[in-house]
């Protein structure tokens, strides 16, 4: 009998219930899209922010110590170096897939033959193909790390005779442009000539430098197989209290906390894991960058949370109006049910089941629409599809429950106020 009454009620008010389902579908679709994006946006935004460079710098431990004592600039002065042959290990750590790009640096000073002036030169990887111990190959280097550089010309090839990439200021002071030759004297006293493959504008101190293949600078400086420092770009999770405590001292964490921290892509845990695989290395987060990333991410997530709450509140309001209107229309019927023996709970159950069934149907449709919406937003804003997160399904179910409950409350109060003597005799 109950199901017959529900079916009858639905058939009788299908227009109103269809509107309720539509309101619910729209609300749920927006909320599901926001949730999907919110749960996936961390990586997306992180990848976007990775366009602005590295967020970790790795230096030899002794150089780091000197740097900590005497300040920045003590970099390679300590006389200790990182080993180039260990660098592929970065792609073998627990968070290997979060290491987006990296490049080693070996700095020196060269004397230009044309003007007789000294200039800073940096040995680096440009598009270095690495064969990993796992059998995979990856390409890393400045081309992926310095995506905001505007290069007039081409990136040099990695290898001894690959060519030179000059910063805009240096090229201007040396009177060189892409296609010219850079003739210089190295610390080893030998004169060399390299083709200038390109001139870049990075809008920073690097505009006054020349970037040469790492192997060449190692040869010039007599530091074969060594690098001075490393810049790493990694996808990270915003820092929290646990990460900040771990960054100070991982040893201070309990075993459970340590496991959580190690298995979360905090910048500090990635730095820790890099130190584990490189001999005598100290990985230091570029806090300004990583904190900015965290802040941006946090603000985007807050905005999306607020929008989701707002959308759900509007949906509950729309639902509330429609349910209340439906209850008003069925005032006499409710009075009759109460007159023949239905309790307040009985009539509330009837309206609640109708409302929740309608809300659930609307939500199911809204879920599908929300997935489509999140994919569209992902494609438009981030250039990639937002992945479907299964965690959104229970969240959508909870949202439906909350919105339907909140939307039904005013109608339920009204329902309780109906007295059969009044509604049946209109006294």
């Amino acid at each position, binding site marked *: *009998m*109950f199901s*017959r*009454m529900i079916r*009858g*009620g639905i*058939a*009788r008010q299908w227009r109103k219930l269809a509107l309720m389902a539509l309101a619910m579908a729209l609300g749920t679709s927006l909320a599901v899209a926001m949730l999907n994006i919110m749960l996936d946006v961390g990586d997306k935004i992180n990848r976007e922010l990775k366009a602005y460079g590295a967020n970790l710098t790795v230096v030899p431990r002794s150089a780091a110590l000197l740097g900590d004592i005497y300040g920045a600039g003590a970099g390679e002065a300590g006389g200790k170096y990182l080993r180039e042959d260990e660098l592929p290990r970065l792609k073998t750590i627990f968070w290997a897939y979060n290491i987006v790009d990296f490049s080693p640096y070996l700095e020196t000073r060269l004397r230009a033959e044309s003007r007789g002036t000294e200039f800073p030169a940096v040995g680096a990887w440009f598009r270095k193909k690495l064969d990993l111990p796992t059998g995979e190959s990856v390409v890393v280097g400045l081309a992926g790390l310095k995506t905001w550089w505007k290069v007039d010309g081409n990136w040099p090839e990695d290898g001894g005779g690959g060519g030179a990439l000059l910063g805009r200021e240096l090229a201007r002071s040396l009177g060189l442009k892409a296609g010219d030759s850079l003739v210089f004297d190295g610390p080893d006293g030998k004169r060399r000539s390299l083709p200038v493959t390109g001139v870049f504008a990075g809008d920073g101190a690097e505009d006054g430098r020349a970037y040469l293949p790492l192997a060449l600078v190692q040869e010039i400086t007599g530091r074969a197989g060594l690098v001075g420092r490393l810049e790493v770009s990694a996808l990270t999770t915003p820092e929290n209290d646990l990460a900040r405590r771990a960054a100070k001292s991982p040893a201070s964490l309990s075993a459970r906390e340590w496991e959580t921290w190690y298995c979360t892509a905090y910048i500090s845990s990635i730095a820790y894991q890099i130190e584990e695989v490189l001999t005598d290395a100290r990985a230091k987060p570029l806090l300004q960058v990583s904190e900015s990333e965290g802040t941006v991410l946090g603000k985007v997530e807050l905005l999306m949370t607020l929008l989701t709450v707002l959308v759900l509140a509007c949906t509950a309001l729309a639902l509330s109006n429609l349910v209340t209107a439906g209850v008003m229309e069925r005032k*006499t*019927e409710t*009075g*009759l*049910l*109460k*007159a*023949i*023996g*239905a*309790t*307040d709970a*009985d009539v509330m159950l009837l309206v609640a089941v109708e409302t929740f069934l309608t809300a659930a149907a609307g939500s199911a449709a809204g879920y599908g629409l929300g997935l489509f919406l999140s994919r569209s937003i992902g494609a438009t804003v981030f250039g990639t599809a937002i992945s479907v997160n299964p965690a959104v399904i229970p969240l959508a179910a909870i949202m439906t429950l909350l919105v339907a409950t909140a939307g039904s409350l005013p109608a339920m109060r009204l329902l309780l106020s109906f*007295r*059969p*003597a009044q509604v*049946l*005799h209109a*006294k």
Partner: protein
Amino acid sequence: MGESGPDNILELIGVTMDYGQVKALNDVSMTVRRGEWLSIMGPSGSGKTTMMNIVGCLDRPTSGRVILDGEEISRLGGRALTTIRRDKIGLIFQQFHLAPYLTAVENVMLAQYYHSLPDEEEAMAALSRVGLSERAGHLPSQLSGGEQQRVCIARALINHPMLILADEPTGNLDEANEHMVLDIFRQLHSGGSAIIVVTHAHDVGARAERVVMLEHGRIAGIVEGRGIHGHRHDDAHA
């Protein structure tokens, strides 16, 4: 005033009902015996419907006592009144008040559902009793006014109430249907049911054993029904 005792199914003692400044019932006392057919008559605004609401446990009086089947009900809460209404009273309305999306038999079963368990066989028997077994599968919109009223009567009877309350049961019916409904009441009365009919119609009211005349919320007189005594009491209380 009738005498109080186990023979009475209903006693009203000094019942008053105020709606703000308006006294819909003013110090009304009366009794209804078990198995009695009583009519309540009076002009509009005399307090008939208010009395029906109070007797039918749809409302509580402002003051006074209402005793139904030996139980004082005038101060009971909403849930307790619902239980009494469900178990002891069968309500028949002028406007029929059938659920429009349920068939005739389902409308009868609705009262069973809120009372105990729906039993289609029993509901069909109730419809047969009012001559509607052929129309059991029809929706209210497919039934005439008289047929809808008979469904309403079947619904009122289905839980075997000790008191049937009918509010203008023939008010919306033509003469043929009016006779049919009154015949059903007569059969119920013969079967021992107590019936209270609120009506404007004298010929309907006169079918009762006693007619209580209301005026301005007070009992103006008691008239014996047709074929029993046929004279008017001067006493203000029944």
